[in-house]
């Protein structure tokens, strides 16, 4: 790890905040079996956005000691009191996500009563629905919540639901469930769950019975459930408003970065390929609309091969003495560490053929960033990075074309959030606008950028369409 990172994060650094920073969190508390998850699902459905994640507090149960383990199997362990939940880890996780960082969510096994060695990675959601009987219990969490919901239900209904769920999904027997209910669940409700009611923003009086409450309201409950519908609608509207605000801020911040960047010179870590006759000739063929598809692909691959070879100059090497077949020695270099690549989809995937010419078995990740046509805001839709990417000596980030630099800014941020040091990232693109390049390097002054050709500002993306033919 480099120690200079703190030096660079001085106040002069231009910052980029991705739209998933400062995410919205909705907390849903309520008795076991009250229908919290139905409410959560209903909110997810109404928001209808790809970045909404339900985080179930059960994942944060503490691993039991062997003594507790025995108790648990005898249904004598209290899973409903706050002590059974690892609030510290949960708070840390939520704080990381608030900062826009990636978080590892523990996986808890209900049959073994312990955390599994694996974790689930959660990254870049914009809305989290935290659901658990004690979701509003810890003040550190309450402070982070945008909306606090308490779901109330008749205790008999709760018990019924709990029996069904625990038998079906968690492999328990009915006797044990009932024992646990009267010994722990009910007392805990009075002590810890019910008091959360007072601090909640919205109380949903009896959960949501499947979709009936929302869609097909029975006449005798119409008023009752209609109110729930309005509550949920309020929640959804509130979150939507917040998201819109953030999206506007993000677009605005990108615009401002462009203004700052316009005043500076193209920095030395931006390497524009020299205008050799062959290079210009290839660029001419590639920009001629009449060029046949077959020729286009051939010259594109050839041109990108040159960019990739140039990018490999940026990776690390160590001195190495080798012996030739005649027994002479030569003091040369060996590459140090793994060079991997990440393609920004779809444009970056045009460049993989050329990449594989230089590194046939290159480890490759992908990230799909699409620009929202209504407001020009880049959006992260999909992410699959190679394991241990933070240990790779160099990560080549590829995009066929870069205009405003919004997608590149976001992709670099994604890599950094996954532990890749700035200095190890080499962004490679066939054509880029000067403003976008300045914007990118103003925010990330230590990445290297390889550019085939400087193009005019605001050039629409067309290279990938030409390469793939659609």
């Amino acid at each position, binding site marked *: 790890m480099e120690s200079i990172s703190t030096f660079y994060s001085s106040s002069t650094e231009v910052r980029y905040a991705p739209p998933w920073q400062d995410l919205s969190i909705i907390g849903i508390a309520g008795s076991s079996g009250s229908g919290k998850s139905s409410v959560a699902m209903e909110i997810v459905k109404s928001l209808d956005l790809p970045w909404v994640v339900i985080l179930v507090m059960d994942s944060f149960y503490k691993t039991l000691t062997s003594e507790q383990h025995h108790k648990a199997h005898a249904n004598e362990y209290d899973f409903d009191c706050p002590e059974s939940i690892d609030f510290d880890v949960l708070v840390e996780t939520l704080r990381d996500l608030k900062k826009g960082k990636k978080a590892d969510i523990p996986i808890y096994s209900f049959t073994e009563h312990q955390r599994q060695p694996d974790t689930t990675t959660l990254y870049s959601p914009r809305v989290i629905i935290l659901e658990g009987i004690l979701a509003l219990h810890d003040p550190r969490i309450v402070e982070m919540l945008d909306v606090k919901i308490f779901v109330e239900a008749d205790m008999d209904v709760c018990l019924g639901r709990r029996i069904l769920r625990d038998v079906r999904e968690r492999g328990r027997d009915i006797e044990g469930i009932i024992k646990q209910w009267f010994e722990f669940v009910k007392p805990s409700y009075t002590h810890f769950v019910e008091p959360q009611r007072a601090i909640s923003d919205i109380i949903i009086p009896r959960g949501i019975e499947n979709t009936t409450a929302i869609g097909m309201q029975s006449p005798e409950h119409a008023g009752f459930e209609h109110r729930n519908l309005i509550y949920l609608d309020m929640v959804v509207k509130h979150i939507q408003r917040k998201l819109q605000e953030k999206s506007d801020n993000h677009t605005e911040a990108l615009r401002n970065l462009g203004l700052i960047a316009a005043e500076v010179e193209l920095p030395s870590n931006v390497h524009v390929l020299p205008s050799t006759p062959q290079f210009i000739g290839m660029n001419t063929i590639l920009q001629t609309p009449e060029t046949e598809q077959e020729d286009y692909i051939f010259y594109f691959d050839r041109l990108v091969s040159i960019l990739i070879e140039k990018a490999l100059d940026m990776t690390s090497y160590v001195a190495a003495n080798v*012996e030739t077949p*005649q027994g002479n020695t030569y003091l040369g*270099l060996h590459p140090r560490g793994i060079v991997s690549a990440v393609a920004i989809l779809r444009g970056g995937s045009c460049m993989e053929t050329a990449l594989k010419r230089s590194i046939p078995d290159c480890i490759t990740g992908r990230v799909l960033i699409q620009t929202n046509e209504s407001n020009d805001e880049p959006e992260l839709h999909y992410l699959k990075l190679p394991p241990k990417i933070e240990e790779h000596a160099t990560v080549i980030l590829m995009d066929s074309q870069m205009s405003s630099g919004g997608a590149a800014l976001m992709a670099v941020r994604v890599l950094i959030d996954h532990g890749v040091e700035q200095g190890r990232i080499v962004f490679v693109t066939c054509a880029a606008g000067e403003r976008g390049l300045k914007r990118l390097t103003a925010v990330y002054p230590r990445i290297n950028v390889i550019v085939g050709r400087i193009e005019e500002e605001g050039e629409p993306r067309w290279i990938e369409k030409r390469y793939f033919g659609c």
Partner: protein
Amino acid sequence: MATKETGPSPAQGVGPLYRPDGEKPTATVSKEVSYDNVHVLPQTPQLIALLTMIRDKRTSRADFIFYSNRIIRLLVEEGLNHLPVVEQSITTPVGRSYLGVKFEGKICGVSIMRAGEAMEQGLRDCCRSVRIGKILIQRDEETCMPKLFYDKLPTDIANRWVLLLDPMFATGGSATLAVETLIERGVPEERILFLNLIASPSGVAEFAERFPKLRVVTSFIDQGLDEKKYIIPGLGDFGDRYYSM
């Protein structure tokens, strides 16, 4: 053993300009020569690492082929830059005008058998349908001088630019004979580009003086020749390592 003409090769820190010298690993780089018609590829850490791979006797044949092809592509790309172009203005797919260039002049490859044939794939990677002629030159058992045994060249070679291919440029005996053959067929000296991976300083010097208008493109000028006229440190017999070892 080195003969007298061979001084030590320069060693220096190699790496991108922006990197401070202390962070650049030291490696032996190409010797410099002062002939305008000799072009040595930029000594980037990447190129040095590729050369290190093909010099290493432990490198497997598959890797040898792969890494030499990568260097050959860099040589071909550099070589092609010496071909003429004419300005051409076009309208791009998004309706902008771009002042570009168009490739002028027909080209062909000529490989000196058999090691030179190993460079054909790299040439084809950059120029798909290029014509390729062949020349076989062997050492005459009696005179010990190189002798032309066979050639098959495009009939219109006199109208073409010729990329002459031979990976190891030691004494330049075969290359000289090959160039003489090409000139005999009517190819002007200035339209010949000789591409090779590793050259000896003496070979390059004699050649540059004998054919002042011909251009040599190489990736590395090595330390010198041993008493068997092998390049040192070199990489062994290129043909053997590429085809059979």
